[in-house]
């Protein structure tokens, strides 16, 4: 086990400056109005870096830089764009531990997750899009003997990307890699809760990207996010967040007639059929781990398996084992590689989780474990820690219907296959789901019947590039993590070509 020193202490792998300006046109650029805001680490609650508090003027500056860079970047040979992405991946890999510690300090997640998931996935994402970019082909349609339709993919131009705070670097890379691969320039706004680690990354890779191709503007949603999302100078807006802001972004996009892709969260069911308990073997152990996945990243995942549905015939015994598994989750210093659950990302997030624990209890759900803020003592006393929490209740309760975005799972029982599917689908959302069974037919039938964009089958919370990720129903529009994402960042140019020497004979 390793305990990393916090940034700012000697011996820490990562070190932040006292302030970050914006990254615009390949230069650190002070915000036009001169304002900054303090960024606290959720690990201790203490501020550690000042961040540019940008306004519309800074967004315009970033759009100027992006528009200047876009024509040349869009014409760059695919091999050259792929090389840029690969070089970014290599640089990140060389600095993986440093980036992981920076990410933990900004977001509060346990460092073992940043080391094993966030950073390796982000690195692989650049490599994946470097690869599929080289393999992308247009198509040709033979219309008739003398006429052929060519389809070329062309970049959109300058796109806006608004990033959430739960996986600051990984979510930025999910959006950056396909946009850059497709030949676009980007103006990106990180979340105001986690604005620092993306700047840390930009500092590290700044020499690898032509000026203006990636521009990062920090600030508050109402002051910097809105001018970006509503700008008539962006050709597309990509957003990960919640439904009301998603609607607002669609509303702005409708005024500019530009496309959006939206990832808006979920309330993912995790279904355990009785046969998982047919033997007390490795598979049963894997299924219990699948239940405990609600605690990954402190539950701050759009696909958190926050509704566990357990078949009645194994309900008591499985839930008993799941409780034991949950109680063994180690909560502690996020910089300790032995820690399994860290800090919630912000104080308001902590308060929201606690308010949901209140309403869960008020609605009559039974609190089986957790349900409280945790004081880890010492410097960590000021951090935002919540105990992994299990409620037992009914799918009509609000804790079964709303995304709490904390380490809280609501458990219900079901009798038959059809009950499981009907409870699973009784939700406004359809982003993720889990199905656990030893029966192949049950697995496929359930997976196809659940209205969700991603159904993990005998696994959960894996996010490999090359597996499409995105939502049904209120969970959003578009798919990330797959080469089809290139289409979301390109438009089709059709050349309709006749090689007949003869007139049509119309005129």
């Amino acid at each position, binding site marked *: 086990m390793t305990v990393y020193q916090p940034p700012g202490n000697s011996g820490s792998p990562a070190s932040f400056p006292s302030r970050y300006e914006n990254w615009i046109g390949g230069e650190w650029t002070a915000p036009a109005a001169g304002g900054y805001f303090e960024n606290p680490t959720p690990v201790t609650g203490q501020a550690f870096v000042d961040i540019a508090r940008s306004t519309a003027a800074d967004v315009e500056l970033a759009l100027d830089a992006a528009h200047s860079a876009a024509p040349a970047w869009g014409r760059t040979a695919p091999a050259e764009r792929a090389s840029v992405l690969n070089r970014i991946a290599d640089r990140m890999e060389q600095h993986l531990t440093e980036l992981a510690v920076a990410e933990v300090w900004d977001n509060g997640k346990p460092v073992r997750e940043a080391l094993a998931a966030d950073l390796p996935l982000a690195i692989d994402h650049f490599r994946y899009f470097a690869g599929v970019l080289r393999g992308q082909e247009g198509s040709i349609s033979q219309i008739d003997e003398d006429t052929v339709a060519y389809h070329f993919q062309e970049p959109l131009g300058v796109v806006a990307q608004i990033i959430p705070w739960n996986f600051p670097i990984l979510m930025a890379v999910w959006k950056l890699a396909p946009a850059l691969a497709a030949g676009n320039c980007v103006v990106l706004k990180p979340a105001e809760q986690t604005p620092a680690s993306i700047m840390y990354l930009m500092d590290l890779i700044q020499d690898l990207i032509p000026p203006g191709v990636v521009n990062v503007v920090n600030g508050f949603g109402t002051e910097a996010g809105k001018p970006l999302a509503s700008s008539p100078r962006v050709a597309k807006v990509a957003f990960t967040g*919640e439904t009301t802001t998603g609607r607002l972004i669609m509303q702005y996009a409708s005024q500019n007639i530009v496309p959006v892709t939206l990832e808006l969260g979920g309330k993912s069911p995790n279904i355990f059929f009785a046969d998982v308990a047919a033997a007390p073997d490795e598979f049963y152990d894997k299924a219990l781990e699948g239940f405990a996945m609600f605690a990954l990243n402190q539950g701050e995942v759009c696909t958190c398996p926050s509704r566990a549905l357990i078949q009645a015939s194994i309900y008591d015994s499985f839930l008993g084992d799941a409780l034991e598994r949950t109680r063994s989750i180690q909560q502690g210093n996020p910089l300790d590689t032995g820690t399994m659950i860290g800090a919630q990302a912000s104080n308001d997030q902590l308060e929201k989780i606690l308010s949901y624990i209140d309403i869960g209890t008020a609605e009559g759900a039974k609190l089986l474990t957790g349900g409280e803020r945790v004081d880890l003592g010492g410097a960590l006393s000021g951090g935002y820690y919540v105990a992994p929490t299990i409620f037992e209740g009914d799918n009509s309760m609000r804790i079964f219907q709303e995304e709490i975005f904390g380490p809280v799972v609501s458990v219900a029982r079901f009798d038959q296959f059809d009950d499981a599917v009907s409870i699973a689908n009784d939700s406004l959302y359809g982003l993720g789901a889990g199905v656990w069974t030893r029966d192949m037919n049950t697995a496929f039938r359930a997976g196809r019947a659940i209205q969700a964009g991603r159904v993990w089958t005998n696994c959960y919370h894996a996010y490999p590039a090359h597996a499409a990720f995105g939502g049904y129903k209120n969970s959003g529009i578009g798919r990330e993590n797959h080469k089809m994402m290139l289409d979301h960042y390109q438009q089709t140019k059709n050349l309709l070509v006749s090689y007949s020497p003869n007139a049509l004979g119309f005129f």
Partner: protein
Amino acid sequence: MDVANRVEVTGMAAELLRRLADEHGPLMFHQSGGCCDGSSPMCYPAGEFLTGDSDVHLGDLGVAGMEPVPVWMARDQFAYWSHTHLTIDVVPGRGSGFSLEAPTGNRFLIRSRLLTDEELKALRT
């Protein structure tokens, strides 16, 4: 309260609303669902967020010294929330999204309780 309602505001939240109204004019809320900063009330300049047939008007917050603040929620979300009473409160923090209070270092927060049978009956009539 002698008249049943679905939504109220705490004194602290009302005070913040007054400050925001001084700067931005009349205000509105739309209750969000989903990811990240979802499940939180979003405060906008009145009319900034387009509401329509897909929304339910939960009520208006009466705050002395400013115009009433309408509170909206998506109709499909209301189907799951209709049995609860909502109080808009405020806590220190930093929401993202485009809610107006974020730069003040505060975040509006929903506190909920179950509506009583009497309240539900009154709200249906």
